């Protein structure tokens, strides 16, 4: 049951994780004094870009995205436009939430927005890839008992892990240790990344062990 999907999922996740690893290692060749702490924003953009690119390519190749009935170019373009719009809106949404959590409003707005971009590419991008720009489907997936395929469950797990990772990552900030990773937003983005990686590992594992119990009602 679901064996094929699980195998596909494992390879997808391995690809994404590898791309994140490369995004951390490769820029060191091109940029002098590249480090995760020192040039944090650069690392952050590299990782987000890599994850975005790889997810789009992989999911497009896999064909998980629900096929559309209309195949006209105009419709495809409008979908693309909507996806971009949602991406941007989601960045704004995360930015707002982070500010509500207490990030300074004006100073270090760039850092906050970068974190929002990272969170968006780790969570919303995946939603866009799996579900398409369809808010109804998103709401369905994230409400209780709303998953309709293995990919939906996987999405739930990774998104939850990423958000919890970012949430937990904020805890070390008040400690007076004066470490480089306590600088805003390093700990949060690292937390989100680690949470995401955990999610990538946890989702297939969990689904594998619960594959007998998993039943999805169809539309």
């Amino acid at each position: 049951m679901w064996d094929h999907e699980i195998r596909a999922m494992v390879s997808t996740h391995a690809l994404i994780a590898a791309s994140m690893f490369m995004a951390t290692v490769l820029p060191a060749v091109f940029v002098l004094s590249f480090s995760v702490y020192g040039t944090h924003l650069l690392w952050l953009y590299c990782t987000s870009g890599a994850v975005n690119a790889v997810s789009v390519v992989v999911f497009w190749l896999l064909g998980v995205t629900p096929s559309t009935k209309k195949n006209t170019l105009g419709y495809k373009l409008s979908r693309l436009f909507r996806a971009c719009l949602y991406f941007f809106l989601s960045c704004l949404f995360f930015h707002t939430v982070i500010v509500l959590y207490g990030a300074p409003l004006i100073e270090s707005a760039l850092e906050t927005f970068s974190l929002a971009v990272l969170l968006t590419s780790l969570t919303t991008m995946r939603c866009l890839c799996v579900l398409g720009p369809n808010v109804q489907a998103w709401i369905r997936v994230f409400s209780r008992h709303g998953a309709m395929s293995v990919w939906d469950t996987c999405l739930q797990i990774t998104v939850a892990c990423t958000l919890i990772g970012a949430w937990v990552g904020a805890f070390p900030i008040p400690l007076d240790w004066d470490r480089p990773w306590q600088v805003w937003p390093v700990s949060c983005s690292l937390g989100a990344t680690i949470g995401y990686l955990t999610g990538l590992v946890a989702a297939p594992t969990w689904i594998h062990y619960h594959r007998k119990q998993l039943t999805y009602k169809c539309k």
Partner: protein
Amino acid sequence: MKVRSSVFASFILMLEVLGVALFLRGFFPVPVKSSLSSKNKLSDLPPEPLTGGSSNTSGAPKPLFKRVVVMLVDALREDFVFGPNGPMFLPYTRHVIERGSSLSFVAKARPPTVTMPRIKALTTGSIPGFIDVVMNLNSPALSEDNLIWQAKTAGKKIIFYGDDTWVRLFPKHFMEYDGTTSFFVSDYTEVDNNVTRHLDSTLKRDDWDILILHYLGLDHIGHISGPHSSLIQPKLLEMDDILKKIHGSLVSKEADGSLPYLLVLCGDHGMSETGSHGGSSEPEINTPLVLISPIFKRKAEMEKPGVVEQVDLTPTLALGLGLPISQNSVGHVIPGVLEESSLREQLRFLHLNGHQLSCLLKDSTPEYQKEAGFEQFRVAEKAHGSWMKLYLEGNTSEVLTNMGKKVLKQYLEALAAMSSALSKQLGKYDMYSMIAGMVFVFQLLLVLLLAMPEALSGSASVDLPVLSSLLSLPFYLLCLFLASVHVLVCTSAESSCYFCSLSWGLVFAAVAFSSAMFCILISLARRRLPDGSQFHGKSPQSSSGGEWMLSELDVLLLAGTVGHTLSLAASSFVEEEHQTWYFLLNTLCLTVFQDVCRKYFREQRDEEEQIVLSKKSQTFSHSGSEMCSEKWLALATPPFTLLCCRLLRSLNQTGVQWAHLPDVGHWLNSSEHKVILSLLSAFCLVLIYLLVQRRCSWVSKVALAFGLVGVYSYRAAVGNVLFPWQHSSRTTSKGTVEARFVYVFVLGILFSGTKDLLRSQIITTDSKLKSRGLWEIYSGLVLLVSLLFRAHNLPVLCCCLLIQTLMAQFIWKKLHYDAAQTTIMHYWFGQAFFYFQGNSNNIATVDISVGFVGLESYVEAPAVFLTALSTYAGPLLWACHLVCYLSSERDRFGMPLHVCDVQAHIHLLLSFAWLQGFVIHPPECQCKSSMWPTAQSHTGPAAIYTKQMSLNRAGCHPGRYLGVGVICDVWECILNTTQARATAAVNNTYG
């Protein structure tokens, strides 16, 4: 034995208070005080030591100085004088320090760096204990032995100008005085002119010996605009001019033959980077101490100032004036001051200081003989005696001088050792009392937890197996065991211990009680255990309950409460506790938001049948549009709450690390933005009225309106806000009349609320009347709090009411949260609002000026009450709202929801708080003081500071819940007695 659960809960609460008190007594040992109540007298001075034969010089040595002028500048930081900006700020003083005959030091003040304890420390030479900090927020006359009393007794004429704290501490001690109040912090010129205007005439006269000047302006500037403001330099230049004037006059008066003068420039405490003080950061504790007198050597260049304790000034001044050192002084004389007198005099001075310290050491520690300093002093005294003998025999050889120098060195070492031994006592813990108190609290906590399900059940009574456990063998064995442990510990204890000093009867009662508790605990646990196995056995039945899963909200509430408890293990999280609460509160709001979204978007269709069933009547009566608007309002509530919290968070910066960041509160309080502040507070008051008046009777409505107008006029009278028709003339008063006007309405509303409540209990059992009574009491409280809050804090109150109203209306009722969830949410909100007010775990953030609202002078009981009320207003308002809300929602919960239920919930939270306060704090303190580099010597300020922090957490933090628990107890009592009477009356009429 069956006990009513309310009685049980109150009983546990009271005993827990006792346990906590015992723990706190061990945690904060009493300060070093001599047991003798008398004061040191000139005639008590020890004779000069002399081996073989009694010495004839038993009196005090000759004074070094004829006149002393102490110029105390409040909040004078060390770097204002010695720092790179020194020549710019205080040119003349710097010149004297660098070239003149002066001595300069950095004097370390001990926390709390607040003026009153500092003045006490400077005059008595003692370090205030922590109990003192709490007890003496404002003390009347100082009865301890002190320098001023000694000077007055010796017939010295003292003149004082400056802060009127001195006048209150030392009434009738001064020949002439003029006190200025530091009540209006916004004024920084008048306070100093009031001091300086007397200076010229006083300096011309010759009839005084000691002149004390206390300048407050600098401190006020610090509070207004911080240590880097542009106002600092002119103020310091003014101080410099004054010093120049005094010095010049003293120099011109100096006559040959008579004793020289001494001019002391010092600060009582420093100023932190934000301009406040009270804590223990380096800039707050480092103050300059400059002694100027012709007897000191002239200097060629600037030397790096040495470091002394602030209390060292006391014995130095006492010896310099030829007075006995006050009894409780723990400082040692500054050696540099004595350098120019003869060797014999120097030794005599050191001997006197050493004698006083050794007496204090003898009094305060039973094991004084083991102290290294004491032994050194004995040796030095002997050597001093033999030196004296040789000296009196007329020996003047080089050997004698060398020997005298050796004695001098011995004395200095002994003094330093004794002084540090004495101040170390502050950092000691009384472990045995602490452990006893903790065990006590733990037993009660476990009993409470085990009995909780039973107490909350329908019968509302607990079956405690008291008799069976009293008659059991383990009880007697345990009694015997504990008693023997007590005897063993008390006979072998190396230091004094409070629990051992209690009388035998009390100790035995405690031992018996503790063992009885233990037996009850065991039997309760045994009763629970088979329950559990039975529960597991009936798996088919419980499987339906097993389906019930924890919602995200439950997980968050549990994880948050536990996580907060665990986070207190790190001292940074204690210092920055507000961050934790804001963070948790935001997450809570987001989770609630998710719940709301789920209810209105997705699961509406799934649970349509249920909704229709539960809200059959409502769905028909409500029109579609109303439902829709309600839906959007419900959806908007959590984001709105989030927004409010974000705004409030930037209103007051608290904590330690980021406290210096600019916040909206400071911006509003600056004089340029007075108009905005006035508009804001007027708007807030109107909003408060609109929010509160809904549930009151019309009498209370009118009273509330008048009261709120009174609040505004009080703020206008004090000078915080503007009246539109008021001219800009600065006629600030204390606003006593306005405040009393408000008090009258507060009392009126409270009275009418209580009347409604009682009537609902006795005459009619009308639940509507009862809930109205509760709401009226609540609104009376709101009115009182709005009077006490500073003008810039009114938005906190306003948002509090707004969030309460919205949440009650759209979230708690509509989403069917149960009582436990609502209680924990209220608790979290209350905690967060405690910090929104600008409080922190640092005791320095307590706003004492609230205690003077509406009072002409300091009256202890109302001042303490008002201060406590305004400090804990946030948690208190949320707790009251909880009581009101639950009692008005009583029918919705289906069961006869008693105040007792609330009480039980709160008791659970209370126990959590105690767990936090006690289990975690002592190890944290120790580890922090060992980690902190400043603490590597005896008790650095770090240890004291952590104690101060944990005092607030361990002592006052439970206070936040304790208050709530007591309120519930009182409610319970009132309700129960009135209900019992009502039923009795009904029975009589029918029977």
